[in-house]
């Protein structure tokens, strides 16, 4: 076998190996999309083939979701809350991570460990005492309560991630800059952060996803239709007692994820290419 051919076969092999992963990841989504496009008649027909649409697709579930419910308002709320929480968490996480990775001061180690301990307390337990605090501040039934509370589970992860990235930036670069007259903060802003951008993007993406998916706090701290987020709204409106509006529920799942996936794909490309461009020496 020539050298030229082996890599090619190897390439096919790799794609084949990827196939089961892709099927595993994609199939439920395919099924959900299919369900959202099937007419009710076919949906509830137990003899129908579940893998394809045989009686013609319909957009009625989507129209019901978009026009009969406040789905657009809820999505707007979700985007607002998620976006703000992400920004807030990444900022707080960045400066905390920088301090923990680079600076020496009292309590570094303790704080570093302390951050992780907060993850051991599940939100399903914390929400009750937290509700008292939120109410005391006067933010009951408000999406701002979410912007305040989401960072509690986003900041620890962002901090950890960014500590790792900051540690890979050689100290010498910063020290050079400071010798040249820059302050620490300037060095951080102009030198370290640009190198750590992939880490920031990564932290932002994960923070975004975790907040987007959050349910318990969203349910507890918001009530009115104008304040609730997309997942709460969809499950509340479309599950009535023992009646599930499957078509529209799945439509909600699809609409709730496709835009985010596009966002992700765009940034992920940038992130990985940023790394491989040799930014880290």
């Amino acid at each position: 076998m020539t050298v030229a051919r082996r890599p090619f076969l190897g390439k096919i092999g790799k794609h084949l190996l990827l196939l089961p992963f892709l099927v595993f990841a994609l199939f439920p989504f395919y099924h959900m999309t299919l369900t959202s496009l099937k007419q009710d008649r076919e949906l509830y027909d137990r003899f129908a083939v579940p893998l394809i649409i045989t009686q013609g697709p319909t957009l009625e579930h989507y129209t019901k979701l978009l026009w009969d419910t406040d789905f657009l308002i809820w999505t707007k709320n979700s985007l607002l809350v998620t976006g703000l929480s992400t920004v807030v968490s990444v900022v707080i996480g960045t400066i905390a991570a920088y301090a923990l990775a680079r600076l020496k001061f009292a309590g570094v180690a303790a704080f570093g460990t302390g951050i992780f301990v907060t993850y051991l307390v599940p939100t399903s337990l914390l929400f009750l005492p937290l509700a008292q605090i939120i109410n005391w501040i006067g933010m009951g039934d408000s999406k701002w309560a979410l912007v305040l509370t989401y960072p509690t589970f986003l900041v620890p992860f962002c901090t950890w991630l960014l500590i790792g990235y900051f540690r890979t930036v050689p100290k010498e670069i910063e020290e050079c800059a400071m010798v040249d007259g820059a302050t620490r903060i300037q060095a951080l802003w102009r030198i370290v952060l640009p190198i750590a951008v992939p880490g920031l993007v990564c932290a932002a993406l994960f923070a975004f996803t975790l907040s987007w998916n959050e349910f318990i706090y969203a349910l507890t701290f918001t009530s009115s239709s104008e304040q609730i987020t997309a997942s709460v709204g969809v499950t509340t409106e479309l599950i009535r007692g023992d009646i599930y509006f499957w078509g529209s529920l799945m439509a909600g799942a699809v609409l709730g994820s496709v835009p985010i996936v596009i966002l992700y794909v765009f940034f992920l490309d940038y992130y990985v290419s940023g790394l491989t461009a040799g930014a880290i020496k």
Partner: protein
Amino acid sequence: MAVRAEEIRVTGARPGLVARVRALLDREEILGPVFVTPALLLLLLLVAYPFVVALYFSMSNAFIGRPSEFIGFRNFVKLWESDAFRQTFQNAFVFTGIAVVFKVVMGIILALLLNEQLWFKRLIRGVVLLPWVIPTALSTLGWWWMFNSLYSVVNWTGIATGLMDPPGPNWLGQRYYAMAAVITVNIWRGLPFFAITILAGLVAIPKELYEAAEADGAGANARFWHITLPLLKPVLAVVVLFSTIFTFSDFNIVYVLTHGGPINSTHLFATLSRMIGIDTGRIGEGAAISLYLFPLLAFVVWAQLRFVRKQTF
């Protein structure tokens, strides 16, 4: 720019102090604490304080809307006598153990594959990310629809391809199948997290190491075990740590798919705590259930972090 924001925050735009503040902030002992303060405040007020309250709940007979009294460890002791709780305890370890192992192994394989030169790279990465990105409350409902005893597409496909005899397993109604089902959904949802984070770790490994090893005659296998894996250890360690914690405290999957059944065989700490704490109003017991493993998990976190610190320094 950055400096002006500092001024506004600290001095309220009084130009005279700028130079002094700048000098102050340049000192590690000042900047450090200043930088961690926001995170610290956030976590103290919105996590530590509620946690202390929750701790109090767990050691009291708190009931919704009624005054409570401190009763020490009685909840914790009593819980152990409950059949449902003992079953939950076992479930949690089985669930987390199996799910995390699968996620680690599959995550590494997937990350290695994603690291290669691929056709349709963007598309593939998007697809891989899908489970992580779909709103959890809704994706779990999608899985319920898939495992649904009436229309189960899983069974339909299994029967159509001859892998199963009709009517196919009763996924959510039989002990071990139900556990398998919830573990599968957890792996489905968590795999992207592993794959992407490990991928980041992989990308950071300098190519020169591989080139040097290859030049020395090391095969692909050897390169993996002696270069890749050791260098991935720090990333793996922390990803496993986070995943273990998240998986242990998983709520949504079990709640939606099985409600803890059949006969408590899939109950996890979070779902049992919800059932007893919120649905029945016994906040004290609910808190005790949630916190039962806290000492153990705290130890695990501490041990892992020491291990990671040793590795990276």
